[in-house]
């Protein structure tokens, strides 16, 4: 015998459908029996909820279909559409509840001014014969709504299906309506004061408005591909930049399709080969874990590694070269050669020696012809710097800098 997986989205929605069938039937029968528009209306609301649940099942089925060439991200946005629909439906229901509550309050105030005990809903059947049926159905229905709503939210979170979470929240709001109706009925029977139902209904309308806003804005966020927010983005950036080998996360785009988080990131790293492969896998895994921590059970991460932005320049070192040995010269006068170096991100990647011209002005012309940006001499220690060089380079864009060692090998040459 196959075991029923209660955490499956489809099983959950089947339970929800069964609940609506039972609730709607019971409320419509009892409502028409006692001539209560409140109970009958709630029953009709449950009929509408039944079809909404059917839409959710269809939505989940479509959203879980795999991506293909036509739909590279799948059809997960169907869930966002459902969220918006449920949110808007809830907003409409909220308007109806609020309108009834306000009208009820106005009517009860008119009735109170006309005289005591004059406000009784038309043709409502009251009495001990009906009391236990009415209160029993409403109480059990409200309790079932709480239980099933929580079950839906839990299943939706576990399976990452936002439409089921939305439906669960709507079911929980329904329980509020049912409890309010129950309170109204009890007050009607106990104190003949049905007006208490209306202020409570206004409170429920407020909760409905809040939930409707949450669902609609969340659904729209998904449809309009709004970013996951600065909190999540900064956490993703921070954790990625903590990974050894990562220089920085240079680009990050996040958004949501249905309940799936999409992350498109650019990471700067000097790693290459197998190290880069390992790093890429680790960063992807880390992003997945972080997104799961923020409630995104499903995520798609697209990562592009790139070398750090190159900062290239050309330096010229004054060199003394004799018998195949070279040293950085402390002054231009003693230099025998100029070493023209191509520098990429502070690392010398190419150098070539040029014999130093005898004339200083020729040296300057050479530096300018080679497009040198920095002219390097050995750092002076306790002596005055070569002022002649400063004078020579004055008025040009070539900066005069000092080397911290006389050994070219230690500078990466």
């Amino acid at each position: 015998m196959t075991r029923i997986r209660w955490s499956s989205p489809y099983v959950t929605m089947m339970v929800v459908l069964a609940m609506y069938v039972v609730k709607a039937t019971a409320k419509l029968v009892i409502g028409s029996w006692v001539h209560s528009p409140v109970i009958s209306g709630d029953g009709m609301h449950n009929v509408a909820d039944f079809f909404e649940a059917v839409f959710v099942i269809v939505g989940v089925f479509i959203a879980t279909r795999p991506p293909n060439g036509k739909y590279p991200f799948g059809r997960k946005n169907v869930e966002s559409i459902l969220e918006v629909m449920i949110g808007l439906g809830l907003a409409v229901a909220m308007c109806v509840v609020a309108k009834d509550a306000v009208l009820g309050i106005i009517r009860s105030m008119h009735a109170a001014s006309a005289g005591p005990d004059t406000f009784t809903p038309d043709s409502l059947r009251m009495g001990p014969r009906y009391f236990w049926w009415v209160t029993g159905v409403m109480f059990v229905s409200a309790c079932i709504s709480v239980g099933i709503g929580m079950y839906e939210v839990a299943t939706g979170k576990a399976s990452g299906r936002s439409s089921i979470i939305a439906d669960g929240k709507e079911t929980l709001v329904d329980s509020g309506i049912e409890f309010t109706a129950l309170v109204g009925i009890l007050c009607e029977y106990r104190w003949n004061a049905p007006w208490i139902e209306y202020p409570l209904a206004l409170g429920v309308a407020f909760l409905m408005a809040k939930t409707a806003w949450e669902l609609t804005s969340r659904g729209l966020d998904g449809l309009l591909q709004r970013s996951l927010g600065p909190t999540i983005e900064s956490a993703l950036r921070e954790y990625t930049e903590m990974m050894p080998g990562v220089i920085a996360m240079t680009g990050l785009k996040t958004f949501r399709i249905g309940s799936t988080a999409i992350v498109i990131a650019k990471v700067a790293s000097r790693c290459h080969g197998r190290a880069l492969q390992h790093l890429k896998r680790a960063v992807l895994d880390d992003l997945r874990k972080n997104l799961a921590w923020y409630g995104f059970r499903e995520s798609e991460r697209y990562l592009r590694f790139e070398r750090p932005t190159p900062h290239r320049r050309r330096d010229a070192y004054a060199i003394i070269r004799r018998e195949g040995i070279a040293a950085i010269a402390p002054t231009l006068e003693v230099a025998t050669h100029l070493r023209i170096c191509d520098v990429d991100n502070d690392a010398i990647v190419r150098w070539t020696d040029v014999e130093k011209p005898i004339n200083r002005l020729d040296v300057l012309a050479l530096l300018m012809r080679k497009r040198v940006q920095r002219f390097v001499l050995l750092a002076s220690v306790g002596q005055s710097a070569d002022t002649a060089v400063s004078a020579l380079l004055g008025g040009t864009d070539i900066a005069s800098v000092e080397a911290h060692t006389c050994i070219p090998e230690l500078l990466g040459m």
Partner: protein
Amino acid sequence: MIDLRPSLCYASLLSFGQCQQVDNADREYVKARRGERGGITVEKPPVATITAVSVPFRDTPDGCAAICYAADLGKRIGVPVRVIAHIPHAADVLRMLRDTSASVSADEHRRVERRVHELVGRSDVEVSIGTSSFVRHAFPSGTIVVDNELARQRRDIWALAPIEEASVARADNTAICIPLGDDESGRHALRYGLALAQRLQRQVLCYHTTWRKPDEPSAQPESHITGGTRANIEDAEHACVQLGIGRFRTIIETADGVVEGIVRAALREHCALIIVARGLHTGMGSYADQLLEESPIPVCIAPRPMPEVSR
């Protein structure tokens, strides 16, 4: 202290790898030495001694990162940091510059010192000028040499390749990964790894990847490991407790490749350092050398000859 089995000391079990198989009697002995029986003096497990951190001076992006890493490591461990500037063809260079009337050796020292202090932002880093090549330089015992190239070139020194990192850890709660096998190199790495973990106050992550036993149906990697590995892991765990290392974890996998498994586990678990030893009998393709190529995480390689053991 009661010496139960003079022929087999605890150090040999944990570190020197004299015995390939750990039989039941040996296990009993180890338990006894651990103080699991009453009346036995408990001995601290042997760990390597760290006396200094050395780093060659190179005024290049990688060299500067290594100097910063060494300075950070030395500060965290609490040992002196020595930067050595090597002058090849020293006599010729000095002669050449002396022609220019500069007091070269002292001046070079001051220049390098100024640069190093500027890089690390503090002045307690010692700088010296060396004339012998680093390939032959005699580093004192217990010195961790921070350099990517020397980690590849020399097998007799305790080398640490920082790869491209400029500090020991980007986050404070990182662990030190010590891959363990059933042979002596794992136990050897453990001595150095535990020394670093203890001084750096880091968690220890022991990693082992195993081949599947053909006759073992279980999918659990633990079911496929050898008795020697199990003993090594238990010893590592016990040593951590003895040394007061707060947290110890073991990951056992059946990864596709050893080096791949180590690097991926270390990255996954946010390790700051991987510590390995070269196998004594490995002819080609040492895991340590492969790690230097494949790991974005700094790799520390224990020296081949055993230095003195601190008790």
